[in-house]
């Protein structure tokens, strides 16, 4: 009787056919919010021991190995991405490995909803909602940044030239989805510069 049933924030929303980019929710990704000081060698080593690779130190970059990816959020904060079912145990591993140093690892797999925006116009659609320059040379695969998108806080990663993952807080997922439906409406294509 008491079987938990997972339901994502956008479970009731179908993939749209009215947009000039494709949009879908990614629900299989686990997320761990990891806090520690870049300057704390013990912490950095402990994190590496758990991950098998270094935490990214450069702002707005990410590192990955296998199915685990780490996004830089701040000089003392990272978002670790892994398979959803693996998140609780990985969070526990972090907690154990950093027992003797100043750190905080929290499983936040349910805190954000992820919308994958795919297609030629994905960067342009993002520029309808936020003030960044998505044609910037830095915006290469692995680039990560927190922004104000439409009227809400968001986080995005560049997956490849035409794919962007947009992370929004779960309670805002429907708002973000509705905004994207309108911004990416077929017929509202803008084009940026003639070259792209």
């Amino acid at each position, binding site marked *: 009787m008491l079987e*938990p049933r997972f339901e994502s924030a956008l479970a009731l929303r179908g993939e749209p056919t009215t947009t000039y980019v494709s949009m879908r929710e990614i629900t299989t990704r686990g997320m761990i919010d990891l806090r520690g000081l870049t300057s704390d060698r013990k912490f950095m080593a402990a994190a590496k021991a758990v991950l098998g690779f270094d935490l990214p130190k450069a702002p707005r970059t990410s590192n990955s190995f296998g199915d685990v990816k780490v996004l830089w959020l701040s000089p003392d904060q990272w978002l670790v991405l892994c398979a959803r079912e693996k998140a609780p145990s990985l969070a526990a591993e972090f907690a154990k490995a950093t027992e003797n140093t100043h750190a905080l690892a929290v499983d936040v797999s349910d805190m954000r909803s992820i919308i994958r925006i795919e297609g030629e116009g994905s960067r342009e659609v993002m520029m309808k909602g936020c003030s960044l320059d998505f044609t910037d040379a830095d915006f290469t695969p692995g680039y990560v940044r927190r922004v104000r998108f439409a009227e809400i806080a968001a986080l995005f990663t560049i997956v490849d030239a035409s794919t962007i993952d947009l992370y929004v807080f779960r309670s805002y997922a429907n708002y973000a989805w509705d905004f994207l439906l309108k911004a990416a409406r077929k017929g509202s294509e803008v084009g940026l510069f003639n070259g792209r």
Partner: protein
Amino acid sequence: MTGKPYRLTEGGSRIDRNSRMTFSFDGRDVQGFAGDTVASAVLASGQKIFGRSFKYHRPRGVVGLGSEEMNALIGVGADARHEPNLRATQVEIFGGMVAESQNRWPSLTYDMGAINSKLSRFIPGGFYYKTFKWPQAFWKHVYEPIIRRAAGLGRAATGCDPDTYEHMHLHCDVLVAGGGLAGILAAEAAAKAGARVVLIDENPVLGGIADLTAGMINGECAADWLKPTADALQMMPNMRVLSRTTVVGHYHHNYLMAHERVGDHDPALLAAGAPRQRKWKIRAKRVIMATGAIERPIAFANNDRPNIMLASAARGLISRYGVSPGTQGIVFTNNDDAYLTAFALQKAGVNVQIVDSRARPDGDLVKRAQEEGIPVSLSSVISAVAGTQAVRAVKIAAYRKGQGRVITERKVDCDFIAMSGGWNPALHLWAHNGGKIRFDDSLQSFRPDTHPDAITAVGAANGTMSVAETISEAQAAGEVAAKSVLKKAKAAKPAKIEVKEPKRGALEPLWFAPATGHYNEGNKHFIDFQNDVTVADLELAQREGYESVEHTKRYTTLGMATDQGKTSNLNGLGVLAEATGKTIPEIGVTTFRPPYTPYSFGAIAGALTNDLFLPVRRTAVFQWHTDQGATWEPVGQWRRAYTYTGVGEEKHQSITREILSVRNKVGLLDASTLGKIEIKGPDAAEFLDRIYTNTFSTLKVGRCRYGLMMNELGFLSDDGVTVRLGEDHFLMHTTSGGADRIAAWLEEWLQTEWTQYKVFVTPVTEQWSQFALAGPQAREVLEKLEPDFEITNEAFPHMSFKIGKLGGFPVRVYRISFSGELSYEIAAPAGYGLSLWQAIMEAGAEFGIGPYGTEALHVLRAEKGYIVIGDETDGTTTPDDVGMAGMVSKKKTDFLGKRSLEQSELKRDGRKQLVGLLTEEPNDILPDGAHAVADLKDKPPMKMIGHVTSSYMSPSLGRSIAMALIENGRARMGETIAFPLAGGKVMKAKIIGTVFYDKDGGRINA
């Protein structure tokens, strides 16, 4: 002239004579060609009047050629799609378009409001200020409604706009505003050097007024020479050309706002999904302002009659649309440029003669006029215009500079006038964000000077009127701009350009042309056509002491309204200068404000309308609440279920049902919106001691404690229960509305004040769904949920928590209560939220569980005297004010707000204190915010001694209850105080303690 009277048989670079279309203007079908504007098509049909003026309701026609138009304002679109106040000279026609004139009733040719014109000697400048001052009450009820009906521009749309709008951000190296000769060449130079360039132009085609300019470039006329370059720009990979787009504002650090009319000209685009308009927000590293210049009218008697237009407009009508304003024209000028209009008219077969105020003009164009046999009257002005609805004739008078009266004059028949008082650089954008301007004697106008941002002006916008100089200036500016932003700019190989242009004679200022008869006797010299401001108005303002140009502007309305003084500003300054004996620079200028041309609210709102207007936050159970008939209470951006109204139930009934269910059985509340913040580190406990008024370092692991927070002013800012997860690890709960604010507050103090603390703060509000299971049977329900931990009162007492499982659900369960009942707050990851909620409802079914909403929660907590931050506190309320001084630590040496509590104001006697209230009449519910008075009188003023903070009908007590902040409230126990209400009603209530229900707290600990 053949066919339609004013459409020439040949010419018209903008129109496609093979594509005819019909639209409606004031209900009349008008024929036009693709490429026509409403102005050109209506003029071609023979109609001259486009509207009535703002104040005097004088008939008015087209004056300008593009965005400078101030008279021919029209409304376009029917019903919900209607947009008022568009310039007929810019609106492109399409088949089926519906357009209408404005500010006329009942019709353009017969207008009731025109009586104002007959009365005009009684409506001088400042008229409104003088006449409608007294009595005061008349303004709102009599004067304003009448004035609003009589004076005004277009009407608003009816209904909800069916079209979509959007915003778009863009970043570029160089933004070029204006796509004329200067703009195109600057953009080309910058792009060829490798810069990323955005070129923005308000017209449907690039080129500016190159087609109306004299001079040959490499043997071709300027427009023909320019076209291949303009076409090539559209193909450059590092270029974006935005046509039908106006740069409406320039803001700090080269941030620009542009307004693109995407689908206005073509309904097919809208049907295909295009937004009607798009607002661009552009950050440019450099800006090149190539906005051109705007021709000045001349202030002569009755210079506002229909078919008196700018010389450039007449020239443009012929060359672009093949439309002649008439058959017999006068060109009235003080400069050489307008001679080009005379040549164009002559070439089109229109009779024309020139009236030039100058005595000895010596430019090449003047000589050419003589060669071509065009009659020129030198040292002459137009001193009178005959005709009201159209020009019939003029009087031409001899003129000497500075002359005030007409001595000799002669009558000449004509049906239109083309006037030119010189050209003003369009420096609006320059001035929007702090650019300085300076007066140029040869232009008799202002031109750009210095600017704090990286912006350059080129071409006519910079006061450079020669073609050759414009070309070199624009190309250099483009190259310099690119070099300044690129690490490595490509070397430019400028092609050789040879320009032949006429030598121009000097312009002589003409701010006022003397009139036949006494001046201002039935002949008005208009300065600001849109606001009906005349030379006489400006002089009157001077005589009445409005010496500052800013005061004159406000008193007379000169340069206000939608055109922001495009054609009137300088002429007004010229008049003021002559009236005061000062120079124009001494007079000074008023501020040009954005937008350059008005744009729609739709474009300003962009996509953020209806459901997107304000983000709405949903909990994991949102859909369930909706399905169960919940009505909503907005809490911050959250929507919380207010109450679940069943079939046939009123809201007050469902609220009562929900309350009694919690008091007597068990209820379930979605409390997921509560703020949750993880706080961890060796200094976490000490940090919390700094943040809260009470102490958290003494809290035992596994236990919960309610805490109060103050800001540094000593006022309550938030409250909630914080639990100790581990020795150095806490989980803080905040109010729903305070979650983000408090997380930021904690970060701020850690980063800026106690930087030595090793503490991490991670907000986790959204990770958890959290439900309050409350009521005497809550434990039985919890038991049924298969906890893997002990839940007896001893093993799991009030203010403790468990981490474990309920069946398969990973949960944290906190035994805390905001209802006064036995209560467990059960938290699970949000993805499991809905299924956990359903499982609890199912487990509780046999105990009669019911969901309860926020209103029931508020009544439950009020019955217990629990405060709500924001209800019982208002940002000036201390812990002692709400009777919680006991929660302010005396031992801790420092925490936020502590020192401020010692300030005299916060310690003084007579502060308002929180009390409970029982109305004399148990069914009377005091209104929220009702004020108590010291002595009840028949009418105000009465001394107010406090106000109601919360007030409800309490089903548990079977009567109304309230809480209030009352001066010295705690010393007034048992006193009855009065609340005078609207309509003369008075409620009286007895002051008691704040706890109404279960005073000893037995139920919570059960």
